[in-house]
């Protein structure tokens, strides 16, 4: 193949000009496709670098990653990272998206002009299954043999020329993780790639005739080859009417006839549904003999086996798993601490600096008490989020995540879920939003909804700020062996969430979501060194996502809250307060004046809009040990749980009579109950509040995503009712039980 890059004139390049757009105006769409674990996303990151954005396919919450890539000719193309898939006959919403995009059935994502198909060169034969299905669709394809270095090391020699001949598409060896062959791939992407004419499937004449007759009645799509149309006809034949995109595509009279045709084929050729899989694998064997040779014995298999003997051992496997999970949560606290201290000090100095350089008044109050305090209290937790996602992406990239699911499947099975539900649930420890979205890889609807319903019980990173604040303020740093009491408390909160999730899943699976267990198949990928670049990009993306939320939602809520907490003011009572303070000052009684100032600030807050709504809530939450200040933060934390921290900061800053920027932890410890004069919050209050945060549904974004995932209001409403009543009952039990035992 030539390494020259030529820019063809646009009229040649554009395969199916869209009506109303000039050829030049339309940017070329290139898609990256491959099996799960083929290194697809690493290649995507390698080709796009920092120019990528993550969105969603409309109607479903399958992640849509789009980036930009400049080719050697200087031409820019849009690069689409399609979800990993095993087959063009979809078994999950992810795979359905891939099928729809490729066949041009997705109204918003046009069929790509070029597809870069990524295979793991060490597992070429099984990855060729999807490659051959794809090539037969008749779109231009470039085959990238990823991990070519690993294949060489294992003694697998792939003859690129022979492979090109057999498949009819350009082939390039690359290593996405190490950056090998990327230049050649980019030059190939710059060329005009012709669709392949190769055909791999042998169909029985009877099946072929039926598909021909169905395909002749389907609407014409100019981008599909004849064999691609046969594929669509076959997909229609296999579908049992649940596939919306197919149903929209096929005319109604065709759909009616499909049932008759299916029954006829069932009579004469009982194997017709699976014959094509068999024939593709026969074709693969031909290609493999032609293009691949092996020398020596693979060491990788032996190494993998040695590792798996320990990591999936009946005793050492689960033990390693538990120790690893414990270590992860301990690290989140310990590793992030230095960076958090630094941010804490920075924010404090900024608050003091701004406060001392501005005239006191409403604007100064807005900036210091509203904006800096609110956003600062949230930014401080970015280090923890970074550490957690760093560890989780390493687990994913090394292949351990799949072993964890393998070990957990039986246990998840106890509550009627598959090991696959483990990964969405584990992701929910960072944030329930991606976790709930990750649940789309679960084929079975009942399993998926159960997983979605219990995902918010996993303690997400937005709860971490709340736990960190309360543990830092109220749990002594006692050492117990190698652990510390704060660490143990944190672990217990995570554990409580898991226990609640198991309970709810068990209940749901016996009531609203009864049904048999679905098919479960999961790949156990080889152990690999992670691509640090991809790991770091994931960490960066998650942190940015959190910061964007901090920058918009939290800032907005902080300002609204500052307003609610400082208005409408005290009016005539305020004037009386000021007079009394003045009198005290003239009399030289500074203590009295300071006490009056505190009292005035307290009165102002109690009288504010926020104070009034918090007080309205007080009778309901008093049995849980919460006062109206916590009540306010429970209201505001519905925007996002971490807002609780900034709310408390704002509320306490206003309550304070301006002695500077005291840390919120100290203020919580120092807060006094106005009636008794004793500490307003005890360690027992802190535990009760944490338990409430573990269990309550306090996140607008979660509710919104559940609504979108389940496509009905039924599940999100059920979730709010179920989680909040559970939270109230559990906190009530903790607080009242603790008091009976004489704690706090």
């Amino acid at each position: 193949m030539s390494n020259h890059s030529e820019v063809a004139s646009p009229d040649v390049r554009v395969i199916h000009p869209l009506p109303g757009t000039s050829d030049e105006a339309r940017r070329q769409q290139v898609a990256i496709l491959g099996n799960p674990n083929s290194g697809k996303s690493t290649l995507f990151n390698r080709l796009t670098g920092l120019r990528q954005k993550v969105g969603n396919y409309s109607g479903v919450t399958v992640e849509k990653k789009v980036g930009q890539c400049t080719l050697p000719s200087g031409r820019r193309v849009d690069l689409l990272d399609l979800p990993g898939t095993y087959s063009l006959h979809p078994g999950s919403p992810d795979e359905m998206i891939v099928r729809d995009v490729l066949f041009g059935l997705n109204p918003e994502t046009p069929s790509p002009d070029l597809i870069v198909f990524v295979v793991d060169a060490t597992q070429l034969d099984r990855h060729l299954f999807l490659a051959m299905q794809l090539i037969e669709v008749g779109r231009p394809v470039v085959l990238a043999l990823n991990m070519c270095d690993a294949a060489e090391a294992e003694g697998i020699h792939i003859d690129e020329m022979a492979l090109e001949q057999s498949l009819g598409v350009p082939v390039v060896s690359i290593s996405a993780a190490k950056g090998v062959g990327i230049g050649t791939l980019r030059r190939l992407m710059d060329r005009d790639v012709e669709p392949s004419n190769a055909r791999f499937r042998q169909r029985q004449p009877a099946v072929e005739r039926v598909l021909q007759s169905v395909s002749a009645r389907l609407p014409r799509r100019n981008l599909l080859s004849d064999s691609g149309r046969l594929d669509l006809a076959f997909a229609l034949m296999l579908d049992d009417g649940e596939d919306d995109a197919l149903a929209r595509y096929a005319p109604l009279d065709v759909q009616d006839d499909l049932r008759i045709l299916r029954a006829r084929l069932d009579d004469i050729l009982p194997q017709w549904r699976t014959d094509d899989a068999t024939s593709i694998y026969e074709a693969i064997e031909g290609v493999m003999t032609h293009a691949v040779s092996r020398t020596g014995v693979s060491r990788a298999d032996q190494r993998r086996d040695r590792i798996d003997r320990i990591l999936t051992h009946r005793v050492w496997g689960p033990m390693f798993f538990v120790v690893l999970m414990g270590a992860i949560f301990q690290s989140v606290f310990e590793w992030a601490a230095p960076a958090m201290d630094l941010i804490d000090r920075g924010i404090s100095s900024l608050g003091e600096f701004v406060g001392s350089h501005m005239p006191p008044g409403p604007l100064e109050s807005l900036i210091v008490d509203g904006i800096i305090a609110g956003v600062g209290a949230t930014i401080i937790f970015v280090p923890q989020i970074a550490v957690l996602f760093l560890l989780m992406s390493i687990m994913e990239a090394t292949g351990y995540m799949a072993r964890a699911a393998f070990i957990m499947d039986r246990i998840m099975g106890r509550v009627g879920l598959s090991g696959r539900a483990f990964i969405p649930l584990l992701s929910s420890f960072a944030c329930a939003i991606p976790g709930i979205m990750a649940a789309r890889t679960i084929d079975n609807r009942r399993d998926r909804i159960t997983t979605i319903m219990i995902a918010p019980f996993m303690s997400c990173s937005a709860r971490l700020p709340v736990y960190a604040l309360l543990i830092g303020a109220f749990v002594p740093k006692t050492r117990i062996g190698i652990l510390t009491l704060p660490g143990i408390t944190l672990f217990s909160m995570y554990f409580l969430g898991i226990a609640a999730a198991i309970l709810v899943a068990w209940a749901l699976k016996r009531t609203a979501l009864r049904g048999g267990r679905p098919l479960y198949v999961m790949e156990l990928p080889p152990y690999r060194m992670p691509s640090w670049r991809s790991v770091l990009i994931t960490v960066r993306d998650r942190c940015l996502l959190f910061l964007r939320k901090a920058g918009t939602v939290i800032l907005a809520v902080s300002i609204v809250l500052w307003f609610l907490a400082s208005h409408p003011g005290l009016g005539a009572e305020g004037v009386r307060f000021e007079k009394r303070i003045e009198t005290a000052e003239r009399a030289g009684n500074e203590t009295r004046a300071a006490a009056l100032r505190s009292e005035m600030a307290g009165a102002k807050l109690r009288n504010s809009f926020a104070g009034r709504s918090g007080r309205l809530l007080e009778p309901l939450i008093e049995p849980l040990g919460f006062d109206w200040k916590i009540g306010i933060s429970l209201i505001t934390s519905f925007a996002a749980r971490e807002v609780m921290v900034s709310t408390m900061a704002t509320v306490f800053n206003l309550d304070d009579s301006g002695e500077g920027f005291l840390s919120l932890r100290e203020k919580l410890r120092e807060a006094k109950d106005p009636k008794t004069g004793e500490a307003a919050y005890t360690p027992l209050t802190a535990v009760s509040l944490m338990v409430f945060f573990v269990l309550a549904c306090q996140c607008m974004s979660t509710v919104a995503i559940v609504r979108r995932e389940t496509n009905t209001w039924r599940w999100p409403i059920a979730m709010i009712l179920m989680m909040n009543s559970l939270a109230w009952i559990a906190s009530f039990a903790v607080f009242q039980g603790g008091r009976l035992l004489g704690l706090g």
Partner: protein
Amino acid sequence: MIDPNGWVTLDELTPGGDGVVRGLDGAAGIVRRLMDLGLVPGTVVRHVRCAPLGDPLEILVRGTHLSIRRSEAGKVHVEPL
């Protein structure tokens, strides 16, 4: 149940043992999925090990390690090697 051909189901293979896929039974969707993953008749498959709690199994088919449940492995009929 003793099969006249000496065939067993995949989950009955001893861990570490190989077999040749001879046939699949069960619902069309599940059979289709298993075949998509390479379990077509004539393929050599190995029962590598089972998970710490006895289920699922790890199988090796066409160079790929897959984890499948005993209930599904029971639908794959193999001739032990």
